[in-house]
């Protein structure tokens, strides 16, 4: 059960990393620069990733699930705030739609799925029973899926930090960004 849930967390980590990759794709290829609230939602996803990464590397623990859930609630609140900004008739939307929903609506749906998923997965008590051994913590001895998911997540986190700096610079991001701060 311990190994199964470690791998399950690795799969979850890859899934959230893919969500972030899609957001980066839209930013770089379609030139959809994220607004401050969009970036805050990305921070929520990054926090979820960190909790899943700790579960993947250290073995499942309730405190790591708690970390991911807290960041998912935070991200859902930010997404809900942005939905409430644009839901009023006559209010312009931000960014383009994907399968009929805007990215902030998709973000809210994703955070809701994450919260439900984490609550269910965290409830299986058998995953916490195995005492942690030193060999469980050595990165080289981890399963391939763990190694791949951790490296992918690290790359996504670093890339987000760099591209956000390129967009906003050291100060506050503009409300409706149209160009990169670094390219001005």
């Amino acid at each position: 059960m311990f190994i199964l849930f470690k791998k399950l967390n690795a799969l979850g980590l890859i899934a959230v990393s893919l969500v972030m990759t899609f957001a980066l794709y839209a930013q770089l290829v379609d030139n959809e620069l994220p607004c401050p609230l969009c970036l805050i939602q990305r921070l929520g996803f990054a926090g979820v990733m960190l909790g899943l990464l700790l579960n993947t590397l250290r073995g499942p623990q309730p405190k790591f699930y708690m970390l991911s859930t807290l960041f998912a609630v935070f991200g859902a609140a930010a997404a809900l705030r942005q939905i409430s900004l644009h839901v009023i008739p006559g209010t312009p939307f931000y960014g383009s739609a994907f399968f009929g929903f805007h990215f902030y609506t998709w973000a809210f749906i994703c955070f809701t799925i994450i919260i439900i998923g984490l609550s269910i997965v965290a409830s299986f008590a058998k995953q916490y029973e195995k005492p942690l051994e030193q060999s469980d913590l050595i990165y080289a001895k981890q399963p391939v899926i763990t190694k791949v998911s951790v490296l992918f997540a690290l790359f996504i986190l670093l890339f987000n930090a760099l591209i956000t700096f390129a967009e906003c610079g050291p100060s506050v991001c503009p409300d409706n960004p149209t160009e990169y701060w670094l390219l001005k």
Partner: protein
Amino acid sequence: MMAALFFIFFIAAVLALMDFEKASMSLAIANLLLCIFWLNHHASDTLTILL
């Protein structure tokens, strides 16, 4: 500023990889508080929605 928050996540992930679990968790919790402050800066009524 926003980039710094992402960078803190990256550092926390690297610390987790280097077996510094407590440091990683502490950084993550500190970053959550920073994120909440930052969210409140951009949208002060969000905490009302959250609560």
